[in-house]
């Protein structure tokens, strides 16, 4: 294995963890995303500048694939049928997937994709605002406002938990 390949393999667990969090725990979709990211990294290895850490480069590739996939999903959301009452079994599966997770995870799923992305890069991957700005292509100010909105939503969820806990205690 070359040095490049070794570095890539070392980053797989981090990419996988991030992809799973980003896609709200959809394991197979997350693995597809990681695989696509690795394949692109291999085909574009000449574009990697060795002195820069490989992780931000890989996360940038992953971000781009994720954003393109999102766009494609939005475009194909309207699934037309001859008799105009389509039912996609995929959406039913998604609904099942939403069950059996904590309120916190639900709140996380309800964040917009760009808010969730920034929150995970900060909280889970411990990246700096500057690194995140490079990965997502958004200015640092935008990174911060997305982060702030994401945290605000999740704080509401935490506040809700405290309320429920105190009601239980009163009983």
């Amino acid at each position: 294995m070359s040095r490049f390949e070794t570095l890539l393999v070392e980053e797989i667990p981090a990419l996988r963890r991030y992809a799973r969090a980003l896609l709200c725990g959809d394991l197979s979709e997350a693995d597809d995303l990681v695989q696509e990211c690795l394949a692109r990294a291999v085909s574009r290895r000449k574009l990697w500048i060795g002195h820069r850490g490989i992780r931000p480069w890989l996360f940038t590739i992953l971000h781009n694939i994720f954003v393109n996939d999102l766009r494609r999903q939005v475009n194909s959301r309207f699934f037309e049928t001859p008799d105009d009452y389509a039912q996609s079994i995929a959406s039913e599966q998604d609904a099942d997937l939403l069950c059996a997770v904590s309120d916190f995870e639900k709140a996380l799923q309800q964040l917009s994709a760009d808010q969730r992305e920034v929150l995970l890069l900060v909280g889970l991957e411990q990246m700096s605002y500057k690194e995140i700005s490079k990965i997502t292509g958004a200015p640092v100010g935008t990174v911060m406002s997305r982060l702030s909105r994401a945290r605000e939503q999740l704080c509401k969820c935490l506040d809700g938990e405290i309320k429920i806990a105190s009601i239980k205690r009163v009983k």
Partner: protein
Amino acid sequence: MNHRNKIVTDNDLQKFVDGELSEAQARLIAEIIAGDETLKKKLHEYREINRRLLEIFVEKHPEPLPARFLIAVSGRNRLPLSRVAVSALWLLVGGLIGYALQGQLDSDEFVRPLPVEAAFAHAVYVPEVRHPVEVNAAEHEHLNAWLSKRLDRPIAAPDLREAGYALIGGRLLPDANRPAAQFMFEDTKGKRITLYIRHGIDARASSFSYAESNGLGIVYWVDNGLAYALTAAADKTALTEAAQIVYREVNP
């Protein structure tokens, strides 16, 4: 600096939590937060969010890496078509087995769900070079007559040239003790699409549904007592367009 006049904004608090401040700035903010209950609560919540993210997503017992990642890293992921098809078949066997069992539980006889059956038939016959079909498109009329007789319903290969696919031919297949039919089509680049038809044991007339597994997309529906499934390594939009042509051909 007189920190009594300093107001801690949300941005300051974020930077403080995320380690984006210089040591001096952080010390100042920490002092102000210490004397402010609202800020203290917010800080606690921000830290709690980070803690939970790590708790939920950091693996306690790292899993072994799937082989497909290592293949992707080695760059040897361009397998010959036949090998891709064979591995796709095995993945389908594994990936759809739960779905198939679900179908079994729902019915008295062993009937595999339509998309599963269609995807299996697709994966088995599409890689065939010499014998993709039993009856060739040259014997188009004989093919239709034969399949109609065996399925006991009028069956005809639809014309998919509008979608860029020409008929290769068709074959008879076993399905839940009743014969089923498969038509195969090919575009100019050799990409194949199959139409699987069986008796409509699944449901009454239904709209288009979509399933996908390992790069194969399946659009399926029930119409006039027959169940149809169109399968190809194509995206949902392209498949749906082709399915609409089939639907129009069947219902002129």
